[in-house]
């Protein structure tokens, strides 16, 4: 419980860092810290394989693309303040506040069942996940393949010069 609280508070703090820091590179690094903390939380929740996937896919692949693009746009970041903002920050703040209040209201109404301390040995193992992916979820798992293919073709097409 203590480990969950520490990891969770670091995750929330570093997530706040994403939207509070000025430089986009620091926001990316802050996101990396959030991902590592979330991975630790997954380990706490006895989902070891998902924790490893989180590091590999998010920190290893997605964040690296983000960093490349952030560095590619290096000169443009400083220009943002030159343009006038199109939206009123007060209205945005009010809507965010309303959202938080409504979430709080829902959370108050929600009754969560007690934590079942005894989790089965097979929970979160590669074996249980693999057997679910290759039996009940075989079609969605295979449908991921054309999705990736379309995404690769689309990204290459969009990225190439005219």
């Amino acid at each position: 419980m203590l480990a969950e609280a520490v990891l969770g508070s670091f995750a929330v703090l570093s997530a706040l860092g994403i939207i509070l820091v000025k430089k986009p590179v620091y926001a990316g690094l802050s996101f990396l810290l959030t991902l590592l903390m979330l991975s630790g939380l997954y380990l706490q929740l006895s989902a070891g394989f998902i924790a490893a996937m989180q590091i590999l896919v998010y920190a290893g692949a997605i964040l690296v693309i983000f960093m490349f693009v952030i560095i590619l746009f290096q000169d443009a970041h400083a220009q943002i303040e030159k343009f006038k903002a199109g939206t009123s920050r007060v209205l945005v703040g009010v809507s965010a506040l309303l959202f938080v209040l409504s979430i709080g209201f829902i959370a108050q109404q929600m009754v969560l069942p007690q934590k079942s301390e005894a989790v089965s040995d097979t929970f979160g193992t590669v074996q249980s996940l693999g057997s679910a992916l290759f039996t009940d979820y075989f079609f969605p798992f295979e449908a991921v393949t054309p999705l990736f293919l379309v995404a690769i073709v689309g990204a290459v097409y969009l990225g190439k010069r005219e």
Partner: protein
Amino acid sequence: MTLPVLISFALFTIGLIGVLIKRNTLIFFLSIELMLNSANLLFVTFARQWDNSVGLVWVFFVLVVAAVEAAVGLAILIHLFRKKQVVDIDQYSNLRG
């Protein structure tokens, strides 16, 4: 068990606020990824709660969609950047159609 649920709510709200107030398109994208991560945390929490691996399978699919979204989204962003040389999201308001 309510603690991971609250963390997930907090992360989702921070991501939503980031989408609403940030004008740098890349931070905007990072905030969307943060919201996907909060959904993942909720999936893992409830999978652990019910001792059922199905939630973890859905985390797997969310990861796949996040990777695809990042690849295509950033490609679109690079394409737009070549045209206008800015990353300010207000400058792309003509995408509304």
